[in-house]
C-alpha cells in the first residue's frame, strides 16, 4: 500500500516532468515555444480543461465516470451566451450556467447512486438528452455577437502577464486540493471509490457523497461553458463534442485511477495543461493539425497501458514481499 501511495505522489511528479520535457524538447526544435507569449497562450487555453478535470476528479475518485460534461458545457455555453448577448449581466448568466450544471449533476447522481445505473450508461444517456436539448434550444444556429467587454475579460492580465481566468482557476484548484487533503468530508470521495462497503461501515453516507460528486462535476462543466463562451467569442452547435474525452484523458495523465480511490486535483490540473500543450506544441513543430487526434489517442493508450503495467508490477512485488515475510516467520518457528 505504501508503494502505491508513493507511486501516486510520483505520478504527479512524472506528469510535471513530462510537461517540462515537452516544453524543453519542443523548445529545442523551435525556440519560440519557450517564450512567455506561447506559455501564457497554453495556460490560457487550458483553463476550460482544468475546470472540467477538477470536476471529473471528484467523480473518478468515487469510482464512477461522467461523460456528460461535454454536453453540459455546450448547454451552459449556449444558454449563458444567449443571455449575455441579449444584454443580461454576466453574473446572472453565470448563475444560470451553474444551475444547469447542478440540475444535470443531480440527474446523473440520482441515476447512479439511487437507481444504481452504471455511471457510464447513465451519463451516456444524459449526454444524448442534453445534446438534443441544446440543439433544440439554439435551433442549430450559432450564438454570435457577444459583447466585446465579455470577450475582452478573457484577455485581462494581472501580476505581470498572468491571465486572470487562469489565476482564478488556480486558486480554485488549490482550494479543492486543500479540501481533499485537510477536510474530513474531502476524504470521503476517495474512500468510497477505494472500498464502498468499508466506507459505508464506518458511517459515510455513500449515496450523498456520490450525488455530490456528480453535482460538483456538473457545476464545473457549467462554469467551463461560460469560460468557453468568453474565450472563443461564439457558441456553435458542436460546442463541447469530444471534450469529455480530453477531460478524462487529462485526469488519467495526472495519475487519477479510473477504478477509483486514487488521485489528486494537482495531478489532473497538470494533465489538463499537458493536453493543451500538446496541441500547441504540434503547431510549433509544424505538424499538420490532422495529426492531433491520433497523437492524443496514442498518448492516452500509452499512458493507460503503462499505468496498468506499473500497478501490476508493484502488486507483484508487494505479494512477493508478503510471501517471503511469511516464510521467514515460519522458518524462525521451526
Amino acid at each position, binding site marked *: 500500500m505504501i508503494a502505491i501511495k508513493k507511486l501516486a505522489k510520483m505520478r504527479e511528479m512524472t506528469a510535471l516532468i513530462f510537461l517540462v520535457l515537452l516544453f524543453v524538447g519542443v523548445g529545442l526544435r523551435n525556440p519560440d515555444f519557450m517564450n512567455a507569449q506561447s506559455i501564457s497562450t497554453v495556460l490560457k487555453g487550458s483553463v476550460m480543461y482544468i475546470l472540467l478535470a477538477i470536476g471529473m476528479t471528484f467523480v473518478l475518485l468515487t469510482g464512477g*465516470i461522467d461523460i456528460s460534461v461535454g454536453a453540459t458545457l455546450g448547454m451552459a455555453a449556449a444558454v449563458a451566451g444567449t443571455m449575455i448577448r441579449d444584454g443580461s449581466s454576466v453574473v446572472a448568466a453565470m448563475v444560470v450556467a451553474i444551475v444547469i450544471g447542478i440540475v444535470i449533476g443531480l440527474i446523473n447522481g440520482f*441515476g447512479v447512486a*439511487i*437507481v*444504481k*445505473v*452504471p455511471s*457510464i*450508461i*447513465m451519463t*451516456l*444517456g*444524459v*449526454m*444524448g*438528452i*442534453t*445534446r*438534443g*436539448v441544446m*440543439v*433544440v434550444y439554439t435551433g*442549430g444556429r450559432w450564438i454570435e455577437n457577444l459583447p466585446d467587454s465579455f470577450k475582452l475579460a478573457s484577455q485581462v492580465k494581472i501580476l505581470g502577464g498572468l491571465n486572470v481566468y487562469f489565476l482564478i482557476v488556480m486558486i480554485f484548484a488549490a482550494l479543492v486540493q486543500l479540501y481533499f487533503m485537510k477536510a474530513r468530508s474531502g476524504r470521503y470521495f476517495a474512500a468510497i471509490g477505494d472500498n464502498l462497503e468499508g466506507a459505508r461501515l464506518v458511517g459515510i453516507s455513500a449515496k450523498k457523497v456520490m450525488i455530490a460528486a456528480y453535482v460538483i462535476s456538473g457545476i464545473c462543466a457549467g462554469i467551463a461553458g461560460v469560460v468557453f463562451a468568453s474565450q472563443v467569442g461564439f457558441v456553435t452547435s458542436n460546442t463541447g463534442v469530444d471534450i469529455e*474525452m480530453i477531460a*478524462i*484523458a487529462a485526469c*488519467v495523465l495526472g495519475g487519477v485511477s*479510473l*477504478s477509483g480511490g486514487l488521485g489528486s486535483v494537482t495531478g489532473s490540473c497538470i494533465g489538463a495543461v499537458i493536453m493543451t500543450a500538446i496541441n500547441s506544441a504540434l503547431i510549433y513543430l509544424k505538424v*499538420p493539425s*490532422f*495529426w*492531433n*487526434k*491520433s*497523437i*492524443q*489517442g*496514442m498518448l*492516452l*493508450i500509452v499512458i*493507460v*497501458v503503462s499505468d*496498468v*503495467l506499473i500497478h*501490476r508490477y508493484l502488486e507483484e512485488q508487494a505479494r512477493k514481499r508478503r510471501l517471503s515475510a511469511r516464510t521467514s516467520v515460519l522458518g524462525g518457528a521451526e
Partner: protein
Amino acid sequence: MERLKNFKGKWDLSLVVLLITEILIFGWINPRFLRIHVLLNSANDFVTVAMIALFMTFVIITGGIDISMGSVVGLSSVVMGLLWQELGFGIWTAVFCAILVGTLCGAFNGFLVAFVGVQAMVATLGTSFLYAGISLVIIGFSGISAAEGITGFPDSFRAIGHGEFMGLPSSIILFVALAVIAYILLHRTTYGRRVFLTGINRAAAEFSGIKTKLIILSTHMLVGTGAAIAGIYITSYLSSSRADHGATIILSVITAVVLGGTSITGGEGSIIGTFLASIIIGLMTLGLQMAGMPTQFTGIGIGLLLVVAVSIKSSMGEGNLISDLKRKFQKESK
C-alpha cells in the same frame, strides 16, 4: 418477487409489445407510417446501428464495452474509398481490406482489454481517438476534401445499399442475415456458451478450461468486423466515403443492446432482444421525423430510452431502488 422474475424472463415479450405500441402510436399520428413500403425502407437507416449492436451484444455479455466502434465505421469507410480511388484497387478487394481493417481494430481493442488488462471503457476511449485520428490523417495526406469525401462508386457497389431482392430492400436482407448468424453463434454453439460463462464468472470459466482471454479478444474482433460492414454499407447507401460517418452512432448502439435486455455488467443477454430493440430505435427515429419533429429530438428520445430501460432493469435487482422502497414500506407497516 416471483412476479418480477417472470417479468424479467419476458423481457423479449415486452419488447414486442413496446414495438407494436410504437407502430400504432406513430401510425395514429401519421397514417403514412403504416405503409409496408415505408416500414421496409426504414431499415436503410437503422441497419448500421443494428449491425454493430448485434455483435456488441457479445462484448457486453462478457462484461466489456466498446465505445470505439463509431470511429471504426468512419475508418473502414475511408480506407475503402482510399484503396479504391487513390491506390487503384478493385472495388471488392477494397471492401475486403476495409473489413479486415475493422477486424484488426477490434483485435487491438481486444488485445488491450484481455491481454494487457486495461479497463474496456478506457482502452476503447483511447482507441476511439486513435482510429478517428487515423482516418483524419489518411484524409489529410490524400488531399480528399473532408466535407465531400470520396464519391463516384460503380453501380455494382452501390447495389449493397440500394439493391432489392424479391421485393425486399438489401438492407433488410443484410440485417436478417447478420441477425441469424449472430443468433446461431451466441445461442446455438459452444462458443456462445463460453461467451456467457466468461461474463457470468470469469475465474470459474478460466478454471473450467475456457481461454477467457481469447474469448474476449474474439468478441472484440466480431464487433470490429460488424462495424466495418456497417461502414461499407453506409458508404454504399450514401455513395460517399467519409471519416465522420459513425460519429454519433455509439449512443444508439449501446441503447439497442441494453434495451434488448443485455445486462451491462455481463452474463446475460439475447440476440432476439437486440434485434427487436434495434427495430424499436430505428422506427422511433423514423416516426419522430414523420411526426414533424426536428432530427435533434431523436437524440433526446434515444437517451431517454437508454436511461429508462437501464433504470427499470437495475431497479429489479437486489439492493436497488425498488427493493429499498419495499423494505421501507415493510418497516413502516410493522
